[in-house]
């Protein structure tokens, strides 16, 4: 199991919900942030990445957050989007290794086949009755998976069981 799956919690990330205000969209928000913002359940990697979660709805994510990061994002998007810090609301894990896709597929009822879901794609779905947001960052494949902090024990328990059955 240890070789087949790497499931590592990451610290010090920044995560914030970005909800577009009336009349604004990916273009306006991208301009204000100086970043490219994809439309749909996708993302374009950057120092702050906007993960598409729904119409006018993103999770802004940075792997390394400085104090005040979320206020800075909120400041740049003032009047364009409502920003809520979620850096503590979620735990984020990096999932990689030869069995990463298989383990996720055993949990998530969305198609993770490389022909359908690849780097740059986001899915908000359910694993073991827990809402998760998954995004794939490379072809290895490496995924990030974010879920509400309070569910961490239950989700890790599922990962352990599933990895043991590989």
């Amino acid at each position: 199991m240890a070789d087949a799956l790497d499931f590592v919690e990451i610290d010090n990330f920044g995560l914030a919900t970005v909800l577009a205000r009336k009349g604004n969209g990916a273009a306006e928000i991208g301009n204000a942030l100086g970043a490219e913002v994809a439309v749909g359940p996708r993302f374009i990697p950057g120092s702050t990445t906007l993960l598409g979660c729904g119409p006018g709805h993103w999770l802004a994510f940075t792997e390394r957050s400085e104090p005040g990061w979320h206020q800075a994002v909120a400041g740049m998007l003032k009047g364009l989007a409502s920003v809520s810090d979620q850096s503590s609301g979620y735990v984020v894990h990096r999932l990689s290794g030869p069995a990463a896709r298989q383990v996720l597929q055993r949990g998530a009822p969305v198609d993770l086949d490389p022909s359908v879901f690849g780097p740059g794609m986001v899915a908000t779905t359910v694993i073991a009755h827990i809402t998760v947001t998954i995004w794939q960052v490379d072809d290895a494949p490496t995924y990030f998976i974010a879920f509400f902090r309070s569910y961490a024990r239950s989700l890790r328990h599922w990962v352990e069981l599933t990895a043991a059955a590989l």
Partner: protein
Amino acid sequence: MTRLAKGGLIDRTKPLSFSFDGKRLSGFEGDTLASALVANDVRLVGRSFKYHRPRGILTAGSEEPNALVTLGVGAHAEPNTRATTATLYEGLEARSQNRWPSLSFDMMAVNQLASPLFVAGFYYKTFMWPAKFWEAVYEPLIRRAAGLGELSTLPDPDHYDREHGFCDLLVIGGGPAGLAAALTAGRSGLRVILADENPRFGGRLLSERHEINGDAAHIWAAGAAAELACLPNVRLLSRTAVFGVYDGCEYGAVERVSDHVGKPASGQPRQRLWKIAAKRAILATGSIERPIVFGGNDRPGVMMASAVSSYINRYAAAPGRRAVVFTATDSGWSTAADLVAAGVDVAAIVDPRGGRGEFQTALLSAGVEILNGAVVTDVRGREVRNIDVRLADGGTRRIQADLLAVAGGWNPAIGLAANLGHRPRWSDEIQSFVVDQAPKGLRAAGAADGHFSLTMALADGLTQAAVAIEELGFKRASSPPLNANDDPCSVSALWHVDQSSTKAFVDFQHDVTDKDIGLAAREGFVSIEHLKRYTTLGMATDQGKTSQLNGHVLLAAATGKSIAETGTILSRAPYQPVAVGVFAGPHRERWYRPERHTAGHDFAVALGASFMDSGEWKRAQWFARPGEAHWLDTVNREVMATRRGVGVCDVSTLGKIDVQGSDAGTLLDRLYINMFSTLAVGKARYGVMLREDGFVMDDGTTTRFAEDHFFVTTTTANAGKVMQHIDFARNVLWPELDVQAISVTEHWSTYAVAGPLSRALLQKVFPNVDLSNGALPFMGATEFQWLDDAARIYRISFSGELAYEVSVPSRLGDRLMRTLFTEGREFDVVPYGIEALSVMRVEKGHAAGNELNGETTASDLGMGRMMSKKKDFIGRVMAERPGLVDPNRPALVGLKPVERSQVMRAGGHLLEKGAKPIAANDQGHVTSALHSPNLGHSIALALLARGPERHGERIVVHDPVRGDDVEAEVCSPVFFDPEGGRLRG
């Protein structure tokens, strides 16, 4: 031993020992339990359900009705396992079922003598009267006597998991048609999943003697499976039974991961549930051979002809020494040829039709007597010994034999195609039902579509795959043709032998006879669905795979209708029995549902917390200290220590929602009965929201942090519901508003710090925040930085004390909790749980979950005056319905027992003194009751008719379930500090 000297797809270098009813036996790798029993000459394997008749093995597949055994022992025991599908493994232990004291001598077989009692509908007819005997006598009696295997009643020691499959084409069944379809689709680049319930692919190619492209058919099948395994776009699932078709082109399947190894390897599940989403699916499930209904057709030694061929060709096990073949179809003649080739003596072929030239010559030369135009009338012997035949000329013949192979024709295995309500169509050509309309994306192919000859089945597999390939926009790869020897497959169905004199069975597993069908028809149960329920035909674990059609044909005959008019039942999922554990997967016992833990959970554990469930959340109920004998002692201490000093309670589970945007205030005005657009920045306000029907939905405080930013809190229980409600309002009701909302419940850890010393404690922890009454008055809020992150303090009190709620990001939640207790030592700070929280809120008369029960209005809860007249809001109109504004409605009051030592309980009903305890006199009920350590007696909140006008009146709390009546004084719901001086302190 009746193992043949050579042949079969078994590995003779790998012997396996196993036991049946304690007797040590041996088989080979590649055997099923059934084939190993056949090879060991075990013919009697079980007793039937109702009459306890001896039963043998009827089939070689998953349709088996008779050979049900209990596999494994202790907690691993699995009853009603079909011996025909159980892969043999070293050390397998199997036991027969439904017999006492032993399989060969079963006391319950006397049921046969009482068989007039057990006719169709016997439950309804026999056990009717007197009514109370049903539970006390009849049902226990029936349960003891009937039923097959028994559950171990121990917890299931095995694991189950699940997986999700996605494909362009799901091929259900890996026989000739399925393999041909999967090969074509796989080579053309489609994502293919091929699922077959067997351990190896090939279907009937493994059991019959055919050639494809010059190879033995089983060699071709192995080659095809090997090629498919090499295609990256193809997923092979052996030992995987597709059990159901669901909406949206989804299929349920169970993969038997470890059933064939006895004990799963460490961490391995026993079985895995698959949910497969398939754009197209091919139903290549083949067909099931049907029995013929004649006297003694259930005796051990009567076997389906196809099963006889399977045991000989696939497992090299001869099911008898001297055989008779009774066949209405050409395939029976192939079985006769298989028997001859295997060296088994074939006494006769009995075929009610005319002669079959292509086989006749060879069989005649082997000394087989051919009885055309004849029928088997009865089988004699507990196990087959003699077979009575009525000849074409009307004469009779008794033939000595120990095996009777029966071939009544073939029924396409199309149950799955009916799962979504599509009714099958009768085909005169093949004398069976075939798929007519099918679920979206699903097509039958091969024998499942009535193409019984091998050549046609292969061709149909290719054709159906080609249709899917084209529909999905792929280009079909060229494939070499598949040349097979052709096998004749004509049939003239024979359903029933009228001349039989002994019991003739239709449904073997439920012991339904031909006479039961006739009786049901005479008693008026002439619809197929009524017949099924009245006779229980097809309702056993095999779901009538071998019996259903014969029963329906007999009903048609009894009612003088055609089979097409009579119709057939719709098969429902699961098509094969599925262990319930596989649906639960890992979600059982502690992990039945996910658990949610607050950031302070571990520290609460360290403080000695006991937890209770609040939805998925674990919340600290109380923190017992050594020497406290009863939880009430603990709770009383926590309440008193908080009211006298300072206590801390984790309230992080309350729902929290950021509502932002230029119209945020407008939206909140429409959601709540009171105004929020007027709330000043830096202030909090209590609010109540109604459902559209006018009843209270939820309450909580909302704080304004900016002109366009409100922070809404909800109760723990309604956090999700209120979030949905807000999203519905802003997206559907008023999409024109510029307002955004998102749950931030998980981002914030929040602790209530309550008691006269709360300010002193917080001031010590946050020395740079001004907590004075002037800077932070009651219902004020402030934001500041703590450990480089945002923190907030709200001056809110649920306890009625000087109190604050302090919030930090959850990453810092544990840190803050520990800091509060370290810094609080000098104030003797205590942790308090939700029990103490409840005591304090009832002392203060705050409504909570017990009062916000979905049946109360704002007025009922004493908050009618909060309903703004200056604006519209959700629920306003419906809240004005006459029934909701009736002054006689029960409304919130407090109750104190007149005799202070008496205890009131929640749920008790309120009566006027002296009133009879009947529903007509009911005046309301107690919603919350508990002991107030501050007052030293029981207190309660209740909903009492015209309650607010009745303070001072005495009423009776009537609790017929748990105790005596208690006389109580009606009072204000606010028991403690009614002026509110403490919380403003």
